[in-house]
C-alpha cells in the first residue's frame, strides 16, 4: 500500500463520516415555504430557542433566551434588532440605538419610531404574511406573533389571519389510485421527489445527531450502530429518490 493510498483512504473515510453541525444549536425543525421560497429553521439553543426565517433578500431571527426575546431583521440595508426583556425595550437600527423602560413614554415612542421608519420592518411583516404554511404548521403561530409584535412596535395594524379564522374544509369523499408506498412516485413531479428526499435525508441526519449525542468516543459499537442506521436511512432515501425520478 503506497502513501498515496493511505492519504486518499483517510480522505474517503472522512468524506463518509458526517460531523454534527451543532455549533449554532440543535436543529429541531426545518421547512421550506414554496410560496415565498423562504426557509424556516427552529433551533434549540443553550437557554431557549431560535426561529429563523430566511428569504433570498431578508432574514428574520427571533431568539428567546430566558426572559429576553430578541427579534433581528437583516437585509442588504443593515440590521434592525429589537430586544425586549421584563424591564427594557432596546432598539438598534442603522439610524441609531434607543433603550426604554415602560415608564419612559417619550423614549418608548422614540424607539417605536425608529423601528417604524426602518423599511425592513414592513418587508419582514409582509414576508410573514405571504407564507404559504397552513395553520397546522407548528412554526406558523410563532411567526405570526413575530409579525404582530413588529406591527405593534411599528404602529401598523396587523391584518387578521384567515388561516386561523377559517375552519378547515370538511374532507370530500373521492376515489384515487393507491400503492403500497406512501405516495406513488408516478404521480410526483421531480421537484416533489427532491423535496421528499431532502426532508427524509435531513431527518436521517437529525436522528444520527440525536443518536451520537450522549455517546463517548470509546463507545465504538454504539457509534457504529448509529452510523449504520444513518447509512441505511440515507441510502434508502437516495435509492427511493432515484426510483422516484426514474423513467417508468
Amino acid at each position, binding site marked *: 500500500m503506497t502513501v498515496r493510498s493511505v492519504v486518499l*483512504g483517510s480522505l474517503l473515510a472522512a*468524506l*463518509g463520516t458526517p460531523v454534527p453541525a451543532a455549533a449554532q444549536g440543535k436543529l429541531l425543525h426545518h421547512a421550506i415555504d414554496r410560496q415565498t421560497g423562504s426557509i424556516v429553521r427552529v433551533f434549540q439553543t443553550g437557554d431557549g430557542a431560535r426561529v429563523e426565517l430566511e428569504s433570498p433578500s431578508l432574514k428574520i431571527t427571533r431568539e428567546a433566551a430566558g426572559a429576553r426575546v430578541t427579534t433581528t431583521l437583516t437585509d442588504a440595508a443593515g440590521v434592525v434588532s429589537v430586544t425586549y426583556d421584563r424591564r427594557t425595550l432596546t432598539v438598534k437600527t442603522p439610524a441609531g440605538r434607543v433603550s426604554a423602560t415602560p415608564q419612559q413614554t417619550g423614549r418608548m415612542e422614540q424607539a417605536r419610531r425608529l423601528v417604524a421608519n426602518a423599511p425592513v420592518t414592513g418587508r419582514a411583516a409582509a414576508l410573514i404574511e405571504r407564507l404559504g404554511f397552513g395553520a397546522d404548521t407548528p412554526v406558523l403561530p410563532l411567526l405570526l406573533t413575530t409579525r404582530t409584535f413588529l406591527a405593534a412596535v411599528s404602529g401598523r395594524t396587523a391584518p387578521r389571519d384567515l388561516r386561523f379564522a377559517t375552519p378547515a374544509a370538511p374532507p370530500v369523499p373521492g376515489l384515487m389510485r393507491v400503492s403500497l408506498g406512501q405516495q406513488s412516485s408516478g404521480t410526483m413531479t421531480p421537484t416533489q421527489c427532491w*423535496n421528499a428526499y431532502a426532508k427524509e435525508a435531513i431527518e*436521517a*441526519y437529525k436522528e444520527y445527531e440525536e443518536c451520537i449525542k450522549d455517546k463517548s468516543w470509546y463507545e465504538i459499537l454504539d457509534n457504529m450502530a448509529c452510523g449504520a442506521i444513518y447509512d441505511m436511512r*440515507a441510502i434508502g432515501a437516495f435509492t427511493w429518490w432515484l426510483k422516484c425520478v426514474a423513467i417508468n
Partner: protein
Amino acid sequence: MRPFIIIVIQILVSAFLTASVMPLILVTTPAAAANPRLGLGLMTAVLLVSFTLVALVWPRRKRR
C-alpha cells in the same frame, strides 16, 4: 471485461459515499434543500469527487 466490472463497482461505491454525505450537505446548505438544481449540482460534484478518490485508491496490479 474485468475493467468494466471494476468501473461499475467503483461507481456503486461512489454512489454509496454520495448517499451518505448528501444528508450532511442538505443540513449545512439549506439552499440546496430548497433548490433542486443546486442540490443536484452539489450531488453531482460529490459523486465526481467520490469517484475520483475511489478510482485513485483502488488497488492495482503491480507492474513488473
